[in-house]
């Protein structure tokens, strides 16, 4: 594969996966103030994939990272640039963006940038929607390869191994296409110091919702957010009889 290629990678800023999330007092959302945020891990895998394609390719590959959201999303884009993306596009929105809105915004960016491929995480770990990639494919009328665990590029086409229930499925699709990443596609690299320094000088374009003329009005209303029930602690039993007794009379499973 040696022809020129342009890849758009979507990068969402989310609550860091290691943070123990809490529901806010009003029960309307997850607490995000003063909580560590990072790039959505599946998007990190997407970014890594784009950079690997760039490194392996003989031709000229441009990787563009794009993020939609609050001002802070620029930090996420700097991470993508430090990993090796060439430039970044930041679509600013103070409002909540739902998957359909993001898909429409990305469609507008795709029409501007004309990439050969858009890589997204299969889902974001904050809302677990698993919709944006599919919606974007629908809006663009592009083929989609979701839950990718392996990607091989050929001339204007790609072969993708998908993780499906009970096994894997291998499909081939022409480009341009949508790719969404699964966990085992790759292990994202660390941002090296020289690259972090270089990333500061890489171009980051700011756009507004108005620039892209997209209707981002929420279509879904969140009624309530609750935490899962607390797990009961384990108990030590003194003997087998004790265990049987507890299984019978307390757990009532015998």
């Amino acid at each position: 594969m040696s022809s020129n290629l342009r890849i758009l990678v979507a990068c969402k800023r989310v609550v860091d996966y290691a943070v123990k999330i809490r529901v806010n007092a009003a029960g309307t959302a997850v607490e995000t103030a003063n909580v560590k945020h990072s790039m959505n891990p599946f998007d990190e895998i997407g970014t890594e994939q784009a950079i690997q394609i760039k490194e392996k390719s003989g031709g000229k590959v441009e990787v563009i990272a794009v993020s939609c959201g609050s001002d802070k999303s620029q930090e996420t884009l700097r991470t993508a640039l430090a990993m090796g993306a060439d430039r970044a596009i930041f679509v600013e929105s103070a409002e909540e963006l739902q998957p359909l809105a993001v898909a429409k915004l990305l469609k507008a960016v795709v029409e501007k940038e004309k990439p050969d491929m858009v890589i997204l995480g299969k889902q974001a770990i904050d809302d677990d929607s698993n919709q944006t990639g599919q919606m974007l494919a629908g809006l663009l009328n592009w083929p989609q390869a979701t839950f990718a665990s392996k990607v091989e590029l050929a001339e204007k086409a790609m072969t993708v191994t998908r993780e499906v229930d009970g096994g894997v499925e291998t499909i081939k699709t022409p480009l341009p296409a949508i790719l969404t990443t699964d966990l085992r596609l790759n292990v994202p690299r660390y941002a090296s110091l020289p690259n972090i320094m270089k990333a500061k000088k890489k171009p980051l374009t700011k756009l507004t919702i108005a620039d892209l003329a997209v209707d981002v009005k929420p279509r879904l209303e969140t009624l309530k957010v609750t935490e899962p029930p607390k797990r009961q602690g384990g108990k030590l039993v003194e003997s087998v009889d004790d265990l049987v007794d507890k299984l019978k009379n307390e757990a009532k499973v015998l």
Partner: protein
Amino acid sequence: MLTMLSRIHSLRAISRLSLKRPLGGINFLGARATFSTHNPSYFATNRFTVDEYPYLKRSESFNRLSEKDISYFKSILASSSITQDAEDLEAFNNDWLRKYRGQSKLVLKPSSAEQVSQILKYCNEQRLAVVPQGGNTGLVGGSVPVFDEIVISLSHMSKIRSFDEVSGALVCDAGCILEVLDKYLEERGYIMPLDLGAKGSCHIGGNVATNAGGLRLLRYGSLHGTVLGLEVVLPDGTILDNLSTLRKDNTGYDLKQLFIGSEGTLGIITAVSILSPKRSKATNVALLGLNNFDQLQATFKRSKDELSEILSAFEFWDREAMRLAKQHLVAGAHDPLQSLYPFYILIETSGSNKDHDDEKLNTFLEGLMTDDVIQDGVVAQDSTQIHNLWAIREGIPEACSKAGAVYKYDISMPVPVLYQAVEDMRARLVKEGAIGDGKLFSSVIGYGHVGDGNLHLNVAATEFCKEATDLIEPYIFEWTARHAGSISAEHGLGLSKNNHLHYSKSPSMIQLMRRFKQLIDPNGIMNPYKYLPLV
């Protein structure tokens, strides 16, 4: 490990939780648990400590365990708190390095200070020697029996007694696992003031009894400062209740200090009151590669200047340690840096304002790059990467232990000569023709806490034997004494360093230590043959 991997592959659930294992990095604690409790045959080939160290003789003043004793213990403890099965005993008789193997026939697991008191009082009267044991993660053979001492395991004492959300004072049983306490505090916005690689197994009581140092000492100081009070049972059964939660208390001799680091030779710590600091909101971790030790020192100096109050850890390891870590750890996979470097530094910052910390750290690191003090480096971008970088550092002891029989030395000294100890040891073994393929030694590894002037010198041999020991000792102790260092910075004395105490302490100090021991434990039943030099 295999079962875990297959579990990962079968994961179809796609949620925040399902991410944890695959990205979580090394689970060497899990691996540890596997061999220590579930696989007694792991130890079967080990030689007994007494065969390895023939100078050790069982003291005739101790009685041997009788049926009468067993029935007494059965009268005060539940049957599940008494272990006599030969296979089950192996995990308590062996240390995790497989260097020491005792021959105890009985493990008692009391669940209250009162039970500990009853046991000790009886043992003291009947002249039965005992070994207190926590998570059994010690490195100097202090927590396993030598002969037939009764093991008193604190594993059934694992309740958190109280936590003061205002002061941060935590009061808990001695058998609480360090990581469990840290998780408990995390939910409340606090943090344990100490952290070490064995956190998933070690007990807070054992940490205090051995005055464990670890990875947060640079920031929060030693247990002599953070422990507010202790509950200790003395050999005569007295329960010394000093579970104070006061930060200031200048009344009388500070008795708790005597028990911190006493390695179970004076009494059994049954509960701990410890001051926990607020958990930092923002944490950053960077891993750096350097060409020589001078650059490492320069980096340390500059970090104190430029990172100052947010610097929370400054750890280092050498090329050999990195090579072993890469070879033996399944890890968060790949090497963070592009090539191998003679030295690595892990820097952690902790503060309350991420933007402020990020800017400070970036300016600091860019300055080092620009001035050619460091050759390469990475900065963790999320918690997964923070975890994985720490996992390299925390996994080094485990990786070293896979290189063969590892002689571990834990010495402190002024920072400028810190690495010279490794170089001199290496040079000595090369000169003796004892290191290399097919030779007695395979490698000399150095890592440790630069901020505390603490070097972990590991010498990997094909087996623990007298010939190997004689090539290292007393050379390393003499070297340390010559450089005004301590022969045991944080691991303690136990069985492996007790006879070398004179390299670090004067005769009059050792004499006073003996008088304390005689006063509190006149029959010498508490963890005998260890800690103080044998006479």
